Each structure stands twice: as C-alpha cells, then as structure tokens.
C-alpha cells in the first residue's frame, strides 16, 4: 500500500531541494536575461517568478500562481473523484513531513472556504465537512529519545491548534494500539511480531500496513468517513518501482489510485499529482513548519528503490511523473472509486454535489480475493497456488509469503497468533474473501459457462 505517512524524502532532501531551487532561479534568470525576454510569471505575467515545480513551462510561476496551481491539482483530484463531500468527516494522516503538512494546509483551506460559503448561504443545505488529524506515534519501534518524540508531538499539537477554525480534533495514537482490542501488552506484542520477520523490507512493508490499519481504527472509532493520505507523486513513483521489484505487478494498480475503498473507511490520495519537490517548495514559501522526521530512512529494497528514483529524477525532472503516468495506464480495480451513496436520507443537495467525473467501473465486482496480510488483490492463478501455508485463513500474495510470512511452516501458527485481530478477522470474514470460500464449498454444484475455471 502506498499509505506511508512519512514524507517522500529522507530528512536531508528538504534543504537540498531548497538550495537547488535557489540555484535554478539564478541560472534561469541569467539565461532569460541574456535572451532579452521579460522575467515574469508565465501565468499572471505580472509578478516575479519563484522557481519551483518540475521542469517545463509551469516552472516559472510567481508565488501566488504556484500556490494556486498546486492547490488546483489537489482540488481537482478531490472533486473529480468525489473524495470529500459535504457530509463527510475526513481524517488527515499527519506525519509532520512536507507532504502531509501541505495536505493538512490544503484540507484546512478547503474546509475554511466551505465554512465561509456555508455562513454566507441562506438555506444552509450543504453542511461543512469535518476534519480530524491523526498522528501515529511509532516511537515504540524506533529507538528515539522520548524527549525527541515529546517535542515532535508538542510541535504537531501547536501546528494543528494554530489552524484557523473550524476546530480540528487531533489524535496522537501509538502504533501498537492496533492490538489494544486483543487485551494484551500491545508494545511487547508489536515488537514480537516485527521481531518474527527476518526480512528488512518485509518489516517495513508490514509496518506501513499496520499504520494504515491504525488509521482505519481511529477513523472508524471516531465516526470518520474518509482517511486522507499525503502520498505524493514522488512516493507513488517509488511505490510503482518497488512493487514491480517485489512481483506485485498485478495488484500494483490497486494501490496508486486516487481512491481505495477496499477498507472499511475509504482511503483517498488527493496529492497524487503533486511531486515532492513542489510540496517542499510550498512549505518553504509559506513557512509551513515541518516536524523533524521520526521514522528512520528506508532500507532494503525500498531504500534502494528510492535512491534509484531520486537519481533518475535528478537526471530528468519529470521522471517521477512519467513513472506514475505509466502506472496510471494500468487498469484499476472496481474498488478504486468511492462507493455510490444509496442512502435516501442523504439530502439531495449533497447528492447533487457528489460529482463524478471520468469514473468508470473497472473490473468485475465479484470474484476478487485478497492477500490476508497486505490486502492486495490476488491474481486468480496465484490464489490457487497459495495453499503452501498451513493456515487456511492465510492466503497471502507471493510477495508477503516471501518477505513477511515465516519460511518454516511450523512457525506459521505462532506468527498468525501475533498478527493483530484486525488482520485475522479480515482474512477470515472479509466479505470478499468469504464469497470465494463459500463459493468453494458449493463449487461442485454450480453450473456456469466457465466450468474449466477453478
């Protein structure tokens, strides 16, 4: 899943980008000066450009146009995919890094505008969507000084409380709380689970997944209807390459779309079209405070991939966009859209507001089965191969089988017992998984034209 809360670049990148931008602006100004052209923003043609954005024409915007452009990408993603509608309550996943900082700012701005419209309107038919912020505290995994964590949390509190009203609820939740319903020592359990994994990359990926589960839990317990992630173009580009490298070519397209409603609470990625560099630039232009990274840098496959993509990006400024565009041409799944509202109680104004553009239903609704660990859709032939695991409820994708599940079948039971209950229940009773298992039981009595299909 492309659901990482953390930002797209290792902590050092932010400064680097900033410096590079300044250099760029100088050289570009020089180039243009010599060619005798006027040094003005390409859009409004009135202010001095700040150099930001990816290469090409759109790189010579002034501050306001740059900001509007970036906000425009966000807004377009939100409206075209019906990510946020008036009755929604959205939970913004906030890590403190540049991407999620911009995300928080944009969601806030959107809410602020909606509030102004609401106050000005006569009939008050369109409610203002609610916003909450969630920070997942992973200090139990990483060995940071508790002081550092406290400082970071304090900063986050001040960021959220300094936003103009409407008021936003802030949840600071330790990652181990996904085990809290199991009634055991959560911290120990989490460490045991992660300790059972030999593969560094597997550990990272499982952690990303647990983080998303944790967000799901917060959202569902507090009545939120969307989980909003700050996953940006650069991170998706890395994800595309690393998923390819892990053999997840089939499920890849499920994880990189604007909307993913495989989960109880749909997950949306409104910054999908915004490269990290632009987000960094906006943070520095607007003085948005970034909280020191709490998560260590990636290692293993993920680390290798992000340094590869970083070098590619340096060599060609639009490389990340090209990667994401390539992956965007892969066919998405049926769950990559916000489910239709059937509830007749929803006010008609809201329904009208619920615009849908270019949303085609893709893939068949029925027979998808999902990996018990990472919840990625399984390719048909793939799922029939999987029973090498001893536990019938663990039908995992080949990637999870390799990097997360224990190699030794005798250790499987113990490993499954360590997984959070949310994972197990989904694997056992997940409605889609259920369909396939029921179907399996009655298989012999079903008549269809696809008889040769197992």
């Amino acid at each position: 899943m492309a659901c990482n809360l953390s930002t797209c670049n290792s902590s050092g990148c932010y400064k680097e980008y900033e410096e590079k931008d300044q250099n760029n602006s100088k050289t570009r100004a020089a180039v243009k000066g010599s060619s005798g052209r006027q040094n003005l923003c390409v859009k409004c043609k009135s202010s001095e450009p700040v150099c930001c954005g990816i290469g090409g024409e759109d790189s010579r915007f002034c501050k306001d146009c740059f900001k509007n452009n970036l906000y425009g990408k966000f807004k377009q993603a939100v409206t075209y995919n019906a990510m946020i509608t008036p009755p929604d309550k959205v939970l913004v996943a906030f890590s403190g890094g540049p991407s999620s900082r911009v995300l928080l700012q944009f969601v806030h701005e959107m809410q602020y505008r909606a509030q102004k419209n609401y106050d000005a309107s006569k009939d008050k038919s369109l409610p203002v969507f609610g916003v909450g912020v969630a920070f997942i505290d992973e200090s139990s995994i990483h060995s940071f000084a508790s002081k550092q964590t406290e400082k970071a949390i304090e900063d986050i509190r001040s960021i959220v409380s300094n936003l103009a009203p409407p008021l936003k609820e802030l949840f600071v939740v330790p990652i181990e709380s996904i085990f809290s319903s199991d009634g055991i020592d959560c911290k120990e359990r989490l460490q045991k689970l992660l300790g059972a994994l030999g593969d560094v990359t597997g550990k990272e990926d499982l952690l990303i997944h647990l983080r998303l589960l944790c967000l799901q839990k917060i959202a569902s317990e507090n009545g939120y209807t969307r989980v909003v992630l700050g996953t940006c173009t650069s991170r998706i580009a890395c994800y595309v390459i690393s998923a390819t490298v892990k053999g997840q070519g089939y499920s890849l397209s499920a994880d990189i779309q604007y909307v993913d409603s495989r989960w109880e609470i749909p997950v949306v990625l409104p910054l999908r079209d915004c490269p990290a560099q632009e987000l960094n630039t906006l943070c520095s232009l607007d003085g948005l405070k970034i909280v020191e990274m709490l998560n260590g840098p990636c290692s293993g496959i993920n680390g290798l991939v992000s340094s590869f993509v970083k070098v590619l990006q340096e060599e060609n400024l639009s490389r990340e966009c090209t990667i994401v565009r390539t992956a965007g041409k892969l066919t998405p799944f049926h769950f990559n859209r916000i489910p239709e509202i059937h509830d007749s109680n929803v006010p008609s104004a809201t329904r009208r507001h619920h615009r849908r553009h270019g949303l085609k239903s893709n893939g068949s609704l029925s027979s998808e089965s999902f990996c018990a660990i990472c919840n990625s859709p399984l390719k048909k032939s793939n799922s029939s191969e999987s029973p090498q695991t001893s536990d019938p409820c663990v039908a995992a994708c080949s990637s999870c089988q390799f990097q997360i599940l224990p190699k030794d079948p005798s250790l499987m039971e113990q490993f499954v017992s360590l997984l959070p209950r949310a994972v197990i229940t989904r694997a056992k009773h997940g409605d889609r998984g259920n369909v396939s298992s029921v179907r399996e039981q009655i298989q012999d009595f079903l008549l269809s034209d696809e008889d040769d299909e197992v």
Partner: protein
Amino acid sequence: MEDDTKPKKPGTRLCCACNQRRAALKRPKTLEQICRECFYAVFEEEIHQVILENKLFKPGERIAIGASGGKDSTVLAYVLSELNRRHNYGLDLFLLSVDEGITGYRDDSLETVKRNELQYGLPLKIVSYKDLYGWTMDEIVKMIGLKNNCTFCGVFRRQALDRGAALLKVDKVATGHNADDIAETVLLNILRGDIARLSRCTSIITGEDGPIPRCKPFKYTYEKEIVMYAYFKKLDYFSTECIYSPNAYRGFAREFIKDLERIRPRAILDIIKSGEDFRIATSTKMPEQGTCERCGYISSQKWCKACVLLEGLNRGLPKLGIGRNQGLNSDAKEDIKKDGRTKRSSSGLALHQEIGMWLNGRETKGDVFLFDIHPTKVFQIEGITQIVLNTWLMGHPPKSIVLVHIVS
C-alpha cells in the same frame, strides 16, 4: 561452516541437492550451495522446462540461434544442442551471426562463433551489414559520430537477423536474452512510459505475426548463472563490450538490478512476474503493419526504418537518418532540403547532436527517435536543452515528429 560433518575435511560442505559431492558454488538464483554436476543438471533442466511449458519448439522445426559469440548466445547454442540431443526435440539448429563490421570487436567475436560452429557441429550463416546495406558500422560511425550510432545498428540488426533467418529458411530464431535483460527492459519501459512495449516485453515468443517469430529460452535464466555455466564448462566465448556502445541509461538500470539482486536474488524473477501480471487493457493500439515499398520488409510506414536511415546515409545526410520519417515518406526531397539547410548552421548541428544524445540515452534496441527542424517546445534549463516529447511520453511509438527549436 559450523556444521561440518565429522568424516569430512574441515571447510567442506556437501551439495544440498545430491548430498554426496562437495558444494562448489552458491547458486545465484537461490543461494543454494551445490556441486558443479547438480548445477549443470538444474540449469539445463530449468531451461528444458521453460521450453516445454511455453511450447517454444515443435519437432522438425529449423531453428536459428542468434549468435554473437558472447556468453549468452554461446551458452544458448551449447545448451540447446545438448537438450536437442538429450530430449529428442527433433530440431535442426543453425547459428546465425550478424557482422556489423566493427573492427576490433565483431571480427574477433565472429572468430569465436566460427570456432563454435566446429565445436558444436552447428552450421553457421553470417550476414553482414556491408552486404545487406553497403555500409559497415565503422563507416557509419565515421560519418555520423558516436552519438546516434546505436540507433542505426539496432534497426539494421533487427532486419539483418530476419534476412539471415529467411536465407536459412528457419521457422524461428532463438535469442540469448536472459532474465536480467528482460527485467531491465520492464523497468526501462516503466521509466519511459511506454505501456505498449511494457505489455509485450515479457512475452517469451515475439513477432508471431511477423515473418519469423523469435523466442527467448533464457527468459528465466540469470545472467550470473550463464556466466557461471560458461566458466565451469570452459565454453569458448568472447567477452568484450561493443566499442561503440556504452549506453549510460541502460547501464543505470542494469546497475540497479545488480544492486537488487545482491540483497534479494529473486527480485529479477519478481520483476518479470510483475511484467507478466500488469493489468494492461488489451486494446493498446499497435500500428497497422504493411510492407516497405522499397525493400519489402514489414513496416508500418511507406518505407521501413532501415530504408529511411539508409537513404540518409547514402545521400550524405546522416542526420536525416533520424529525420522525420513521415515527411520522408510523403515527400522525401523536401525533407532533405530542410535538413540541408540545418546542416549548414553549425550551431544547429551541435544542437542536433545534443538532442540526439539526449534521446539516445532513452532508447532501446531497435528504436528510432525521429525529429525535425521546426519551432516547438524546447527549453533551455541550465544550459541543457530539454524537449517535451508529447506523443512519445504518452506511450505511443514516436509516430512522426519531435520538433526542435533552436534557441539562439
């Protein structure tokens, strides 16, 4: 080494496959420690299974092995003739080499192929650029420099192989592309946004609609294992990089794959699996296929790429070789005039070459990037010319034009 068994000498470890002989190597694909004999057996058996499962060959077929004298094709020739005998494939095998005419590289490697002809008893056919096109690569490079030469070579080789195969009257050509090559191509196609090629590049048999299909029996075979096999079998192969080739961009992806392999050997297979599994709508358009009016080779245009390139060479306008092919096809003369004009301006030529280099870094074997001298979107950023290649980035093959504007 801690689990040495008592009767064994210290420092020895048994093969984990046969449990009898001493392990001599760590298999790159699985990291199992096995002995030489078991390595040979498992290496050959895997290829045999790939051939069977994918029905690469039918009994009685004539198969040409694309032989460059390098490790991949040498091992392929050896293993195929071995398997053909062992499992009674009933194939007539031939070696087919292309002589690009590169002194100090191809002449030496062809000597290797000629020795292989005798060693494996496989008839050899050599087709040369000189005979087919009237130009050697040496002459081409002398004319156009080191910038776009791989474009010429790639286009010419593809056709040369097909022509050689036609002369041999074979049913199929087997090439030595290995798993690393394919994984690399998958990644490059993602990086380049070429969804059409991405969907095709993992097929084990290609060109079934063309004159002579090609297949890759080494699709799942690791490069390292091929090297290891050649090394232990003491196969006679030629291991020098092409003197004109070093291609930074491909090398870059290659380096990445080597790094991946180091931390997770199965990553190469996983990339291929991803390539096979990508959900790509089958409606991805392919250009309509016709034949070249000039030489009769398959072509989606009036003239095939090779003829277009050749025309440029023969008219002494090599830059036209990568000129607008639609223009050439509809009105060749006018195009040449245009190009002639540009040639006169030295800065234009320099820019041309710069762009050529810029494009060249992004090509794969057999691609031609076409561009023309017309004003359009070119940016000079930090002194480097950047072009927006709209059609190309959208994943279509470069149909006609990438426009270049000389920023003065």
